[in-house]
């Protein structure tokens, strides 16, 4: 404990430094969410496809990625991202730690989101699909106008609570050398030898964001049995 360093946490310049870290954390989370929503939807639809050539690879990818530690993916793509792409894009190809980490985090998140989306779609009554088909809607239109709008409402609480997991996991991207909230605490405490104070400070910031999100998710889910079942499909992936 270094009580003599407490003034650091009210110093406007240092607070600005932490705010920069927080901004990066939110940026990493936002990038990961955008990428994994697209990829997750594609994986979910492929996994529920009638074509075995789509269904089997998608099932394999989702199950394998969900069974890997997210930190392994972040380390691998964050550090080795460039050399992975070089055989395909030439020796000049370079991925920054930031984007490598985002890719690792997004891959894991898209596997989880694929499970959320699949659970959401499967929890709709079959009659919805049948009615849409009977009305002559083709597959993309049925998804766009009938299935996804209804399923999305059921997925919102599960996605919100996945969001808290993503925000916590961005600290792992910091661990491979990307500047973000946890990294900013690390920089402060390696210079001032006050890990207790600095880590508690960022822990409180993480807590406020994640607590608000998880309360919101719980509020939205309240009394909605189907939404609860959608979230239970990924319960194991949200212990991270």
């Amino acid at each position, binding site marked *: 404990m270094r009580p003599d360093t407490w003034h650091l946490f009210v110093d406007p310049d240092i607070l600005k430094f932490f705010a920069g870290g927080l901004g990066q954390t939110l940026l990493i989370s936002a990038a990961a969410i955008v990428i994994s929503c697209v990829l997750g939807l594609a994986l979910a639809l492929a996994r529920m496809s009638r074509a075995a050539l789509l269904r089997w690879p998608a099932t394999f990818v989702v199950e394998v990625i969900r069974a*890997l*530690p997210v930190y*392994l993916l972040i380390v691998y793509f964050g*550090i080795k991202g460039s050399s992975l792409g070089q055989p395909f894009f030439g020796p000049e190809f370079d991925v920054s730690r930031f984007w490598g980490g985002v890719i690792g985090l997004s891959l894991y998140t898209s596997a989880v989101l694929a499970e959320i989306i699949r659970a959401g779609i499967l929890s709709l009554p079959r009659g919805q699909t049948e009615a849409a088909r009977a009305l002559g809607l083709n597959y993309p239109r049925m998804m766009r106008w009938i299935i996804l709008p209804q399923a999305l409402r059921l997925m919102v609480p599960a996605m919100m609570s996945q969001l808290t997991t993503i925000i916590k996991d961005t600290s792992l991207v910091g661990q491979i050398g990307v500047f973000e909230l946890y990294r900013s605490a690390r920089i402060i405490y390696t210079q001032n030898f006050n*890990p207790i104070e600095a880590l508690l400070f960022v*822990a409180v910031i993480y807590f406020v964001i994640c607590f608000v999100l998880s309360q919101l998710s719980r509020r939205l889910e309240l009394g909605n049995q189907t939404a609860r079942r959608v979230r239970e499909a990924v319960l194991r992936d949200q212990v991270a």
Partner: protein
Amino acid sequence: MPGGIIFEFPDQYLFPSGLWLTVQLSVVSLLGSLVVGTVIALFRVAPLAPFRWVGTAYVEFFRNTPLLVQLFFLFFGAPLIGIRFSTDPFEFNFRAALLGLALYHAAYVAEVIRGGLLGVDHGQIEAARSLGLSYTQMLRYIQLPQSFRSVIPPLGNIFTALVKNTSLATTIGVAELLNAGEVVESRTFRAIEAYGAVALLYLALVLPLAAGVNWLERKLQVAR
């Protein structure tokens, strides 16, 4: 041969010993989190409000902050306030990781056990109390045993996640599975093989576990 790199360091046994350390970390910190989690769950359902506040504060704090921050907090913070896990540095790192993993997952365990306790029919509790059992006797003989069945599958889910989360122990210098991969990669520069081997070994741990949990879930559902 894919995965052949696992056996290429026979003098060091890096991958086998890393795997063994991962298994040790998982099992011991699971046991720790079951003990702490049960205590916190009892706090969460206690008849006295201050106990419930303590339980809620624990669960919400540990669930809503990153495990990585908690691990580093223990790793750097504990010695500064006079807690030394061990004088041996390797043992120190290992024990810090054990404690960090146990405390973090205890919050999730507590929520599962609390759900199980609240799921027991209230008439059971009233009947036990009116038969003259004390509150602790009622917990011991009526409420805890009856909640046992419903908490097993979700606890299995937490264990699956716990095995994956042990990979964070490498950040505080525990030579577990991911650490073995990092060491081999830095020696050989064969990243795809080294991390591929790590991934295969994690899959070998996690996939059977997840399948087992799924099977249990279905079996207990049918039996109910």
